[in-house]
């Protein structure tokens, strides 16, 4: 395991960041917490449907890791990704509106809780298939390399995802092709109701990449400082060496897997023990003791978070539901080079064929970033004289 991949602990972890930075981290962790608590309430009030996977308890892992990235780096997540959207800067309004299934949502209500996305902020989603996001992250990293930038991709997934075939396939390819990806296992101790030791033969997850020569690191996912310190090393290593690292963030899911979870697979005591290590009060206490923030600052931070969540709910409530006639928008990109009828099911009550003359009408907001990248790539092409 390369030096750069040594776990951090003590040395950096004890060093506090600049006051403004520290405040921003705490504010963001608090925002995520308050946002998800409210989302849970909204689910109970049937404002939100489907599955709702909360990351309450995992905020230090989310913020500590995302803050090790720069704006042009990619972040790829799972179906448990409200926090990842928020930490990347997606307005809470757009995230809540997505949960409400409204046009104001970051995906216009198409994806819902499991499929958040914000291309402009390089938050690359939001994937519902366990393990499905790893190859996509490797592809993003390939694009970064191919277009000769030094951006990296942070791919986060759960302990249960380590058992999916894509895990071994993707780590091998990333190591073989020297792709700039940080694979981060958010080890919250369970894959749904299955405890780590009951689903993985190797419970020391940072070692799961060893066989492929992918160095492993571990961070205390309940400690935003340690998480940030370790991820900074991981990101720096990957950015410099152009080869992948596997980081295990040890954390815990305070709530059920999703809203309907009797939690028969763990004891109230176990949950209580972990809750004592709640990353938000822990970090707050630390900042207060270090004199970085006062009691009033802390109250203010929480009040601000509450206000932003109130505003998000108000926005989401006011945002209209998608109109029925938008049902077929964006099934295909229609301004492409091809014509032809994309759907011929005139016997399908819902369907509307797209005649050639309508083509080009379809919207694709947010896609504006791609042309930029394309022209970069094309420029390369010209250099290469092709």
């Amino acid at each position: 395991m390369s030096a750069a991949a040594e776990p951090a602990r003590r040395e950096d972890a004890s060093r506090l960041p600049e006051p403004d930075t520290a405040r921003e981290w705490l504010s963001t962790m608090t925002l995520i917490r308050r946002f998800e608590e409210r989302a849970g309430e909204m689910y109970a009030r049937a404002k939100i449907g489907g599955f709702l996977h909360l990351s309450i308890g995992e905020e230090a892992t989310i913020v500590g890791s995302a803050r090790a990235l720069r704006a042009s780096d990619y972040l790829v997540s799972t179906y448990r990704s409200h926090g990842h959207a928020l930490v990347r800067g997606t307005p809470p309004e757009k995230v809540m509106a997505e949960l409400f299934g409204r046009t104001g949502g970051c995906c216009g209500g198409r994806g819902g809780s499991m499929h958040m996305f914000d291309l402009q902020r390089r938050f690359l989603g939001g994937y519902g298939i366990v393990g499905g996001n790893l190859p996509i992250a490797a592809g993003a990293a390939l694009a970064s390399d191919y277009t000769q930038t030094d951006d990296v991709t942070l791919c986060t997934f759960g302990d249960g995802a380590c058992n999916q075939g894509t895990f071994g396939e993707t780590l091998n390819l990333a190591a073989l092709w020297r792709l700039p990806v940080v694979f981060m296992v958010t080890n919250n101790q369970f894959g749904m109701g299955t405890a780590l030791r009951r689903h993985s033969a190797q419970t020391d997850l940072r070692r799961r990449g060893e066989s492929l020569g992918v160095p492993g690191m571990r961070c205390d996912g309940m400690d935003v400082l340690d998480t940030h310190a370790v991820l900074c090393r991981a990101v720096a290593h990957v950015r410099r060496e152009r080869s992948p690292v596997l980081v295990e963030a040890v954390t815990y899911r305070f709530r059920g897997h999703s809203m309907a979870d009797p939690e028969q697979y763990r004891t109230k005591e176990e949950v209580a023990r972990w809750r004592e290590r709640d990353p938000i009060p822990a970090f707050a206490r630390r900042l207060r003791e270090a004199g970085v923030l006062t009691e009033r600052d802390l109250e203010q931070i929480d009040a601000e978070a509450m206000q932003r969540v109130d505003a998000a709910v108000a926005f989401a409530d006011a945002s209209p539901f998608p109109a029925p006639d938008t049902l077929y928008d964006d099934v295909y990109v229609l301004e492409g080079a091809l014509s032809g009828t994309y759907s011929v099911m005139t016997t399908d009550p819902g369907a509307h064929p797209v005649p050639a003359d309508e083509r080009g009408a379809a919207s694709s907001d947010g896609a504006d970033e791609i042309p930029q990248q394309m022209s970069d790539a094309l420029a390369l092409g010209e250099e290469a004289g092709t």
Partner: protein
Amino acid sequence: MRYREALREALREEMRRDERVLLMGEDIGVFGGAFKVTDGLLAEFGERRVRDTPISENTIVGMGVGAAMCGLRPVVELMTINFSLLAFDQIVNHAAHIHYMFGGQARVPLVVRMPQGAGHQLGPTHSHCFEALFLHVPGLLVAVPSTAADAKGLLKSAIRDDNPVIFIEHESLYGVRGEVPDSDEHLVEFGRAHIARAGSDVTIVGVSRMALTAQRAAALLESEHGVHAEVIDPRTLRPLDLDTILESVAKTNRCVIVEEGWPHGGVGANLAALVSEQAFDELDAPVRRVSGADLPMPYSKPLEDIAYPHEAQIVDAALQALGVAGAAAHRS
């Protein structure tokens, strides 16, 4: 008894009857099953026979294939049909082909259970109906029970059969109650369609959950339009009881097929093709299909609602098949 409980009964009875039957799947044990179908079975049968697995769909199914080849009768639960795509290679290139490919030497008495369906705002990756992908494959048996009685009877038959069976349940049906014959030997034969409602004006074939939606539509057709629809639930798609459908069409001369999944190359297209070809002279109007919309299922409720079939579309299709537009019309 609920559909869920009927399935559990089938599993319990067959596990008691035959020591070779074991269950494997994600969270079927300690968690009790994502939809609680297997709840309580770990307590009764223990970890040897009720096995929680890691999230490794292709390998879970493949282990089922290997174990079945060596004399066991595994029942694998995939948490939902959406994840079956990851196991598609083991299902098609292995489970379905092994008996034929090896000249009849090996058998694969494997059951793969999984629920499908939309309606719970689970969004694009979690709302699939994939009957069409499986009925396409020779070597597989495919069941799509819509009632508690059929769920139990078909699952018991599936477990006793020596062929690999794709057993497709529906997320919206688990809580639905129905009469279930109180017998350890309640077996429902594969390849026998069920006439859920008798009628003489139009034949409506409803697949999986749509068999129930079709029955409600038939009630509306009767009460609001005086139309007597015959509703047929094929119950299994491989083998398919086409004869029962053709007999009905010979009587009604009109046919509507209702499926929840995608229209292109769907189960509806398969049935419409067969009926159109084989009842060519009996049909007074083209076969009508009512299907899910041709797109990934959106999360937002109002969009999801119009993206899969409801009674109204079935009523309309039936009236169109009868050549009567609009309401309160009579048979022309």
